[in-house]
């Protein structure tokens, strides 16, 4: 069952991995220029983005150091968002899409327990995202060495583990919403709203008094507040993400087990 799911997504996964890798290569190769003339780029960046927008980009305080640059262009927004999009797509392919097209009907009549079916599809999602993040980790680490950004591998690994965890978290959100409703559009909408709201709360919302407490329900808080690129693996934060993912996956199992399929 797991092999089968992996086979199903092999091309999507290949293309997304290539895309995210290309993105990392492209952006990190710019760092060479910045490093040579930091006095030019640093203030220019700060001037270009007004206050709230700067918040949205994670501050931009420190675009000229290796870690700062890596944090801003790779780990702040683009790479986690791309990986979340890929995770949502893969999660939808696992249950909601086949249910909507109708192929799932025959699958649930196979002598496979429904709970095992969901677990197998979840396992395939984990493995797919592992492949995506492992390859892009190597690409990022390679590029960092190439442009001599001076960020140790351990820190990149810590940052990338966060990418895996947040992508997996949102992928599992999609899987669970899909398992419970059988509707791709519902699953995508839940992820979309939660991503935008969560990201906004931990960036712009940080300085807004009334909504600051909302950060506790934002996955991005656990993703970035530990500053893994500067301070190494934020074990506690990451465990929260992983734990929430496990709870969601179990919810998906129970929800799908009780449902009428294809109705």
């Amino acid at each position, binding site marked *: 069952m797991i092999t089968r799911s992996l086979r199903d997504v092999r091309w999507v996964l290949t293309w997304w991995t290539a895309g995210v890798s290309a993105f990392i290569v492209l952006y990190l190769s710019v760092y060479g220029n910045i490093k040579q003339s930091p006095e030019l780029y640093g203030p220019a960046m700060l001037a270009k983005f007004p206050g709230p927008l700067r918040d949205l980009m994670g501050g931009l305080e420190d675009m000229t150091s290796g870690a700062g640059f890596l944090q801003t262009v790779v780990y702040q927004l683009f790479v986690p968002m791309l990986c979340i999009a890929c995770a949502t797509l893969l999660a939808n392919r696992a249950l909601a899409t086949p249910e909507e097209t*109708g192929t799932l009907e025959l699958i649930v009549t*196979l*002598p496979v327990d429904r709970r095992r079916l969901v677990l197998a599809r979840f396992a395939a999602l984990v493995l797919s995202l592992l492949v995506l993040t492992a390859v892009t980790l190597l690409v990022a680490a390679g590029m960092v060495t190439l442009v001599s950004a001076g960020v140790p591998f351990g820190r990149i690994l810590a940052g990338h583990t966060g990418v895996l965890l947040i992508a997996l978290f949102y992928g599992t959100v999609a899987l669970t919403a899909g398992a419970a409703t059988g509707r791709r559009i519902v699953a995508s909408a839940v992820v979309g709203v939660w991503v935008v709201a969560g990201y906004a709360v931990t960036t712009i919302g940080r300085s807004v008094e009334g909504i600051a407490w909302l950060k506790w329900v934002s996955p991005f808080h656990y993703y970035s507040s530990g500053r893994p690129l500067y301070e190494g693996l934020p074990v506690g934060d990451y465990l929260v993400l992983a734990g929430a993912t496990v709870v969601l996956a179990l919810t998906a199992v129970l929800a799908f087990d*009780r449902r*009428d399929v294809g109705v």
Partner: protein
Amino acid sequence: MTAVVQTEGLTKYYGKRRGLEDLTLEIQPGEVFGYLGPNGAGKTTTIRLLLDVIRPTRGTVRVLGGDPREPATRARMGYLPGDLVLEERDRAIDYLRFLGRARGGVPAARIEALAERFDADLSVPMRKLSKGNKQKIGLIQAFMHEPEFVILDEPTAGLDPLVQQEFLALVREVRTSGRTVLMSSHVLAEVENVSDRVGIVRAGRLVAVENVAVLREKAVRRVELHFESPVPRDAFDDLPGVRDLRVEGAGVSCTIDGRPDALIKAAARFTVVHLVSAEPDLEEIFLTYYSHEEAHHDHPQPA
């Protein structure tokens, strides 16, 4: 002997919409059961309940003595969905192998033999197959693991007549080996030749279960006889079951109700040159049956 299907008060509502109401039905091993009804009657709903694709609102369902919710029960079943959708990107052979593995292994030779029988090409991606050819893949997967109980939802849809014959032959073989088949259809003609019994479902309710052999015997059929020389009318008058008698010279025509025995014996006293007996139209009987039911349910007599 445990019944293959045993339902009691089986009911399914989709929200407020009725899918199936109060179905109580038993199907015995070795039987081919034709499940008939117009579109929207509740055939697919029943079938999905038997396979645990959907769950009953009320009532109980047991299949092969077990709960269809158990994987072990479903392992002994084969299923052709009514609106079959296949994994478009796959080659048929890969898809069949995957299904075979999930069902505990199917010998490659058996898949090949079935493919040859239905003249199905397994090497092309399934999105390139026509409706009829997809249906063949659906039939192969339903039969390939030699299940004890095969459920086919409108199996003949889209099949050309030659493949249809092959399919019916396969159903007969399955019955001969003591296994059980349930097939749904909205036309009786498609199932009457292989079915032992037919059940008719209408607007969510099972309105009749009939033995096909009994039905045939009951059927009215038209018979024409031609003799060598003119025959006297009184030789055929008042024969049991004979109606609408017309005798014109050497020709006799009538309709018979049930067995043709008396008519044959009466005719045997003369020299018969030609005999025509129209196949009884069970369809017509059922339609008559339906319209009675309809009148009964939908237009209650004012009190």
